[in-house]
């Protein structure tokens, strides 16, 4: 299930601030409470794909250790895509919530 939403997850992890690959993985793990334990090797190709899709931009920046690392940030299109995805996800979650609510209601009624 996560595979189909990888792009949205990566965009969401970058919503607050630019970050490099490892920090993005840590952020996904932290914000999902450890639930999203993605294969880390899939994050870098996703970042590359999103960058080529114009949703992310990247640049080389020096880390504290002096090493050069690639830092990614959301572009305007990326921010817009994230807002759209968030709204879509919210509608989906509401619909599923309603469905489960109805189902549990109906089955409770049935039992009575």
């Amino acid at each position, binding site marked *: 299930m996560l595979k189909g939403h990888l792009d949205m997850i990566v965009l969401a992890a970058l919503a607050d601030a630019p970050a490099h*690959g490892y920090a993005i993985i840590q952020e996904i793990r932290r914000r999902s409470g450890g639930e999203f334990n993605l294969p*880390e*090797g899939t994050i*870098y*190709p996703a970042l*590359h*794909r999103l960058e080529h*899709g114009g949703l992310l931009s990247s640049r080389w920046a020096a880390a504290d250790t002096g090493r050069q690392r690639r830092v990614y940030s959301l572009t305007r299109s990326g921010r817009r895509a994230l807002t759209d995805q968030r709204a879509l996800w919210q509608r989906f979650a509401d619909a599923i919530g309603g469905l489960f609510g109805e189902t549990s209601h109906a089955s409770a009624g049935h039992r009575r």
Partner: protein
Amino acid sequence: MHQPAIVADYLDALTHELRFDLELARRVRSEVEDHLLEATAAEGTTDAARRAIARLGPAREIARHYVPSSLLQQVRHVGAVLIVSIAAIFVLMKGRGALYEFLQWRLNEDWPQIVSVGPTIDRYAFQSALVAGIVGWFYIASLRVAPTLHAGYRRQIKRCLILPLAVSGLLMGAVALDVILGGLRLIEARLSWAALIPLASIAVEAVLVATIAVLLRRTNQRIALAASLFAEQQTG
């Protein structure tokens, strides 16, 4: 900082799997190296490196994920070079035509068949290349990168190369005719310093067509190398 041998081996394997796109291979190697340094910063042991590598997954699997975007980037590059080349050749052809008019350099009448049909074939070859180039460009621009290299996406990428291939063939024909027709005019006009201008412009056209041909060959090689990453999946 000392790097465990297992990390160096993994990075070498990753670079090898990404050999279909050398620039990408350098970039990914650097990013993954940084990732592994971060992941093992606290412990710095071989065991920690082994765990970090296991979390990243097999090098070939990572490389496979990069294939769709790398191939699309390459065909977009081909498309851009194609459009720029067609525009440049158009300008050079028009400029040469204006120069011939200005200097009153006519085609040598000793070869009436070439004189009668040559310029027409040349014009149609270029116009066909122009139309095919524009269609190809719009097709390439309409493609969106797929998350995986599925059969449909592979077909789209191959289609992206067919039109540039046709364009380069037509442009080669047009440039070859330019060489013949230009030669006939120069025979008539006698060699002079002014003759260097059309000769140089034809040489530039030839270089542009050769560049497209080389680029198409490289793209084909890249597709073949990238496809080899999926060979065992298809046979298995």
